[in-house]
């Protein structure tokens, strides 16, 4: 076992992990962050996508012990019922969720995009979610929901809307 520190949504967590443990398993099994989904375990499906040090990564491709000191954002730290992030709200309102398994990873990919590109084109959105597989929706409603989320976020930034992301 090795002791590591992860910063989860701004809060430091000290924990002991096995050297061969994947970050996805640590997040799910040791920290109870079950919104981080496990799909392919080889970096193909994107269901386990999280932000690590602000960058979108597949948590199944990261050894937890090597991620010591990293700051992590998962769907749980983005927003929660009653305080949804605009991307979560747009996905729920836009019918972008069917079985829901890809949704957390998809939303984190959208967050990574919108952090950098506040007004993305459809092509940029499709490119940004290329690493996230969805077998239900056909992607159309996901793309349009990310468009809507971008607009919500721009309005929020301009001071129009009520702030509803996890940062308070």
């Amino acid at each position: 076992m090795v002791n590591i520190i992860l910063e989860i949504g701004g809060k430091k967590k000290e924990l002991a992990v096995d050297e061969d443990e994947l970050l996805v398993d640590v997040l799910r099994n040791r920290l109870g962050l079950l919104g981080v989904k496990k799909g392919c375990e080889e970096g193909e499906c994107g269901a386990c996508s999280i932000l690590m040090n602000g960058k979108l990564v597949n948590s199944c491709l990261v050894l937890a012990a090597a991620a010591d000191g990293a700051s992590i954002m998962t769907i749980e730290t983005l927003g929660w019922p009653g305080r949804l992030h605009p991307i979560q709200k747009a996905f729920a309102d836009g019918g972008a969720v069917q079985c829901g398994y890809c949704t957390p990873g998809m939303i984190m990919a959208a967050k990574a995009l919108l952090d950098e590109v506040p007004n993305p084109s459809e092509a940029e959105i499709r490119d940004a979610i290329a690493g996230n597989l969805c077998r239900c929706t056909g992607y159309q409603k996901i793309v349009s929901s990310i468009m809507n989320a971008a607009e919500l976020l721009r309005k929020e930034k301009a001071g129009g809307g009520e702030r509803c992301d996890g940062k308070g």
Partner: protein
Amino acid sequence: MTFQLLKPNSLSEVFQILEDFQNDAVLLAGGTDLVPLLHHEAVEPKHIVALGRIKGLDERYADGEDLCLGPMVTHQQAVRSSLIQQYGAALAEASGTVGSLQTRNMGTIAGNLANASPSADSAPALLVLNAELKLGSRAGEEKVPLASFFQGPKKTCLKPTQMILEIRFKQLARLEGAAYVKVGRRSAVTMAVASAAAYVRLDRKGTTIEELRLALGSVAPTPVRLYALERNACGIPCEKVFQVIRPRVRDGIRPISDIRGTKEYRERIASVLAERAVEEAIRRARDR
């Protein structure tokens, strides 16, 4: 899988670890190739040497006429680097076709080379840029042209005690252009069924090929340069160069049939990709 994870803070510690454990130690850069192999127990090293703690390994900078990349430069850093976009666009382009944003954010160019897959996207691009690798070990440093680095599928000339310290190539100048193209089984997040990179240097009028370099991926046991074809293309007017390329690509490759494509398809697509890469390289050389 049981291994010991080592997290050295300096290169000299890495060199000492590699010296002590030799083939029992494996370097962990971005992990996009290694971690799934570990997880599925396809490799079972005793020691994993994580390079993430060592500062400064992701530097990219111009050194005189050259561009230098540290061993932890990720594909996405290459995609975003204005230096690489301007003076080595074929590499930024190749890195941009690697996996998804998730894997490009983690995966490194040096790792892509060291993994030595015949389909490694960065390899053909760096081959036509005449890239040189600096390898380091406790015994000292050594420079190796990328063209002699690959020795077979997943085999390189890297000794168990060595790591890649730097990737270096000459910045493209006026009348020079390079490009990378690939075809996969789908348009994104895909490994190359075949790929091609080309470099051209044109004469002052921009009408004749003074130098051509062509490299192909996924059509031989290693990424390959097509030296014989390149020699034949020297001094040929741009519009006639395709007649030189088309019949000669097949001589330089040894494709096989596998899960991603057949030998016959690869033979046909290789010359198409070679032409597209050269065409784009010529266009860029004229634009510079």
